[in-house]
């Protein structure tokens, strides 16, 4: 009898520990999706539309590391700030040719190939601007865990809330790291350097 009770208590203990481990290791629901995925399951090949109106696929990025940033050309603050910053950090990490900066629109209704082309030229260094059909963009957003949501500004216009995390990929297209929007320059440059040499 004593032994049976002991076994039951032991079982209870095992179950409690298992529950504890489950809660400790399961991802927190409020974490950004980007941080939850592992490099092997992350991203995926995509085909979008380049600023020349022609299809642009991931195979065209192979052989050179690249960073992926999602935004929109009517973005008054975060997007130009981030792109200008990426150009600056790229110069610090290795120069304009060290890696590609890829800017993908989350506002394909307003951003056609022409708009992406003009906008991407405004930062004094090469930036690859990509857009696509709303369906293509949705697919790519899903693959990379990117959130975006239109927010009306009241006058019939709208702005877009969106993930501003920069995604880093090595020359083989393998995801290596992220740069958070509020991250300091030095750790960001270190990550970019590691991406260049990996």
């Amino acid at each position, binding site marked *: 009898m004593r032994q049976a009770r002991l076994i039951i208590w032991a079982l209870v203990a095992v179950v409690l520990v298992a529950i504890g481990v489950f809660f400790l290791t399961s991802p927190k629901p409020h974490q950004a999706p980007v941080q939850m995925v592992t490099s092997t399951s992350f991203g995926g090949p995509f085909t979008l539309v380049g600023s020349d109106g022609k299809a642009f696929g991931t195979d065209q990025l192979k052989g050179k590391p690249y960073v992926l940033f999602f935004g929109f050309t*009517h973005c008054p603050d*975060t997007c130009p700030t981030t792109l*200008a910053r990426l150009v600056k950090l790229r110069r610090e990490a290795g120069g304009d040719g060290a890696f590609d900066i890829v800017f993908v629109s989350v506002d394909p209704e307003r951003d056609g190939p022409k708009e992406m082309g003009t*906008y991407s*030229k405004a*930062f004094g260094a090469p930036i690859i601007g990509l857009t696509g059909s709303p369906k293509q963009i949705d697919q790519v957003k899903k693959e990379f865990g990117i959130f975006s949501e239109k927010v009306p500004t009241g006058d019939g*216009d709208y702005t877009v*809330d969106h993930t501003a995390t920069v995604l880093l990929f090595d020359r083989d297209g393998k995801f290596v790291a992220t740069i*958070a929007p509020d991250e300091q320059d030095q750790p960001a440059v270190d990550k970019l350097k590691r991406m260049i040499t990996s």
Partner: protein
Amino acid sequence: MKHALFFAALLLASCKPASAPPAVSVDGAWARATVTGQTGSAAYFTIRNAGGEDKLLAVTSPAADASLHSTSMDNGVMRMRPLASIEIPANGSIELKPGGTHVMLMGLKRPLAAGTTLELDLKFERSGERKVTAEVRPADAGTGM
């Protein structure tokens, strides 16, 4: 009697003493140049206050629909929201900068070209109205954050 004193004290405590008059100045105003096709941009400046507290109630511009906005990061997601006003602390300063609080310019009547200027009209609760001339800088200016 004791009660009356207590309430009198309470009443006094709840009355904020009138603070010193504000001494507000605005400097370093700039706006980001637009890229062809863009009808929106942002403007930034620093408000310095050498006096009592004040509040920035509104920013308008003859060149665009201007409004105060904050940019906040929520787990990597950039969210931009209108701000009703900005508190200017006594003897303090408020900096509007890329990646943070900014003046959103929508429906620009003409493109903003680098090297030109843009007029901004600031309305303060206590200091009244101030005209500020913002310098238009290239689209890749300001890496902020």
